[in-house]
């Protein structure tokens, strides 16, 4: 007994001492960038199917789209596989000139015909990503007429409406749906079942053959992804060319923040991409590690089900906005992970409200209580509150629930896996929902067209891709407003219209936005240079060691 107690005491003493320098720091290979990430959600590398942020991040280094946002200023569009583009006078015909020197990793030439086929298959397959085309009037039935390769280097797109050029380029043509796949391989490996072709989906899922700086060499689900340099790449820099310096990019599945922290401290990895707030804070004082923070175009927010008699009251929803200690959370639980923000358009997007105007609310229990009393619920009420089990969601929800309890609102929490949470959200099966969302493109329209606009609120409409529909909330005034703003070709007017919508939504909307996502990446200073991080993805083409 005595001995056992002694052993336990010394074990605890050792644990108390915390991490000390490790013997023999292992260095990663010189030509390989090793990253730790969570690869849980990764299920496909087919650009027509990718629907989550990590897959998108990786595929951006494997497959180039027609055009791209500049990484450091997403309001600028730069050429990728297209070297130039033009729009007809009526605004209905877009013509892209492709680079003459596009090659697949095998050295085979890539043409506009490959690209047209790649875009057609996005529409035919109809996965979530196809919305990036269907939203702009492209459709499965007319795909072959709407997107045409007129010769090996020219792609023509026929639009249904004269959208502002900036908007349509950033929303549709900078998207993964214009990534160029090998038509010949895709057709050859297509599987046909019940008379329907999968357009090479099963084949490209694990090994997309694309024009891009890297190719997928190995993918073991939930374990490792290895990218290898495409030696036939035309150049990572849209203007100056240039070949990637690093031969291999390795992503390791390390779902634990603590493990990632240890590995980067020891130099087992070069880059840690999934660290929680406290591990980042600890790493910030490590002289070997640099933490790069980037505001992403995503949010964590609460959704109130407007079909619920209590939550349909805008005042009740307004009261909730005063239950959150934005400043306190920002300094503690979500430090490095989020920047408090209430407006639905993210900072960095076209026409976003500025930082101050986008964060009008603060923790104010008295005010919340007063608003609730005005709404007719001075005694409070009870509601169920569902959320993702992933960090940092649980502490945020517990914080809100504890504050709500102080004004008599009882929130019963239920944590669940993301897959389950998404399903509950899509089926409108919730009272209060805490969830995240990533905007597709850096324009106010991206958020407003999904979060404020609700084209059809009927249950049978099943517009589950619209968070507004999920919340059973509809406001015809907002619908018309947003449509007018979208088509407005005068930039100044467009910005003003979006500002009005944002202000209206702050007070009346069915969502309470808590924070805009920040991506914090820890990088070994001594080994990694010129790592390019944008709000939507990270590019490794320029990275050196």
């Amino acid at each position: 007994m005595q001995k056992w107690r002694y052993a336990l005491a010394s074990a605890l003493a050792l644990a108390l001492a915390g991490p000390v320098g490790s013997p023999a720091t292992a260095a990663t290979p010189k030509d390989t960038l090793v990253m730790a990430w969570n690869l849980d959600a990764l299920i496909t590398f087919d650009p027509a199917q990718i629907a989550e942020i990590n897959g998108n991040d990786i595929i951006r280094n494997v497959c180039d789209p027609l055009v791209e946002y500049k990484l450091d200023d997403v309001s600028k569009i730069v050429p990728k596989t297209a070297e130039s583009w033009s729009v007809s006078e009526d605004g209905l015909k877009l013509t892209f000139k492709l680079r003459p020197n596009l090659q697949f990793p095998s050295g085979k030439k890539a043409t506009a015909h490959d690209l047209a086929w790649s875009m057609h298959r996005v529409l035919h397959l109809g996965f979530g990503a196809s919305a990036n085309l269907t939203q702009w009037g492209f459709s499965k039935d007319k795909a072959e007429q709407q997107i045409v390769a007129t010769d090996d280097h020219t792609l023509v797109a026929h639009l249904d409406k004269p959208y502002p050029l900036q908007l349509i380029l950033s929303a549709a043509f900078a998207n993964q749906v214009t990534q160029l796949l090998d038509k010949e391989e895709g057709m050859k490996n297509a599987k046909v079942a019940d008379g329907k072709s999968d357009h090479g989906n099963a084949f490209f899922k694990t090994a997309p053959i694309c024009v891009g700086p890297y190719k997928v060499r190995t993918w073991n689900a939930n374990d490792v992804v290895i990218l290898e340099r495409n030696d036939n790449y035309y150049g990572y820099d849209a203007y100056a060319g240039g070949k990637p310096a690093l031969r291999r990019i390795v992503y390791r599945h390390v779902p634990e923040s603590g493990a990632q922290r240890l590995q980067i401290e020891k130099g087992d990895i070069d880059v840690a991409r999934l660290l929680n707030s406290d591990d980042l804070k600890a790493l910030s004082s490590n002289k070997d590690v640099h933490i790069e923070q980037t505001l992403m175009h995503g949010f964590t927010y609460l959704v109130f089900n407007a079909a619920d008699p209590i939550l349909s009251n805008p005042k009740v929803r307004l009261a909730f906005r005063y239950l959150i200690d934005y400043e306190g959370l920002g300094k503690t639980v979500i430090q490095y992970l989020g920047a408090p923000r209430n407006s639905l358009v993210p900072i960095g997007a076209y026409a976003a409200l500025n930082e101050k105007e986008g964060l009008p609310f603060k923790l104010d229990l008295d005010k919340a209580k007063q608003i609730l009393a005005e709404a007719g619920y001075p005694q409070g009420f009870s509601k169920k509150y569902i959320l993702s089990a992933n960090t940092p969601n649980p502490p945020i929800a517990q914080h809100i629930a504890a504050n709500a309890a102080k004004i008599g609102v009882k929130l019963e929490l239920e944590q669940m896996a993301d897959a389950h949470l998404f399903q509950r959200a899509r089926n409108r099966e919730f009272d209060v929902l805490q969830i995240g969302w990533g905007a597709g493109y850096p324009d106010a329209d991206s958020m407003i067209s999904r979060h404020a606009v609700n084209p059809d609120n009927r249950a049978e409409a099943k517009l589950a891709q619209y968070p507004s529909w999920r919340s059973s909330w509809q406001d015809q005034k907002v619908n018309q407003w947003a449509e007018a703003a979208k088509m407005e070709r005068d930039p100044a007017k467009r910005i003003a219209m979006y500002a009005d919508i944002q202000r209206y939504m702050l007070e009346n909307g069915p969502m309470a936005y808590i924070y805009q996502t920040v991506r914090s990446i820890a990088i070994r200073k001594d080994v990694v240079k010129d790592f390019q991080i944008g709000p939507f993805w990270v590019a490794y083409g320029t990275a050196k060691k």
Partner: protein
Amino acid sequence: MSANAAAAGPHRRRLHRWLTAEVTTSPQQASLQRLYFGWLRFRRNPLAMIGLSILLALIVIALLAPWLAHYGSNDQDLYARLKPPSAAHWLGTDELGRDIYSRLIWGSRITLYIACLVAIIAAPVGLIVGTTSGYLGGWTDTVLMRVTDIFLSFPGLVLALAFVAALGPGIENAVIAIALTAWPPIARLARAETLTIRSSDYIAAIRIQGASPLRIIVKHVMPMCVPSVIVRITLNMAGIILTAAGLGFLGLGAQPPSPEWGAMLSTGRQYLIGAWWLAAMPGLAILLTSLAFNLFGDGLRDVLDPRTE
């Protein structure tokens, strides 16, 4: 022993004499004597006594939680989060600045709640299935035992995981899932006991008197099986607590902000390197409790199983 008895007052001495009398005068005295001798034997096993005292302490802690805890289970302080153990917070604070010591105290109620509820569900189910199967025999036996075997053919945790995944997370569902995995061994045991009881003269005599099978099972077979079922469930209790903690650890058990130990441990896992106490403390509590059940059960088995004498 005798010194002890002598030191005690005359009442205790008389009680001791009555309990150790060589000739018993009533059945009650006989069964109490059996218990008393068992207790005396149990008391000689120091490890078992340690187990028992930990369990008693746990029950006391759960009952007196409002007085023992320094804070409520959900009192938050964002600016005092992840603080190491200190005089103000004996076991430190967690990611929302809640006092871990207080949460462990409140959490003892949940642990006991889970353990008791599982026992209350699983023991009767196992008892009914086992005794029915054993007494009736034939097809009933074949079918029931086949079902039992199917449940037994999954490891407990995997089956509980699958059930909880199906039922949805939450403490009640976790209890149901664990109970679903806990009854088969009890049914097996009850069946084996029933098979020996069934062939006894005593049951034959009752059967000849014309008692219905239902009456025999409920009135005569089940009571005979109860003691061994109780021992068995006590022995399983450690496993039940570990499974519950495992479910909590995977986020499928009790939901936040509930101070369930497994769930606390699961949260602590994210802060492992910087704030080890978040995971270490609830883990120790789980270890201590399941160890206590194992020690207690072990002692109990020694007392009741004559072969180990």
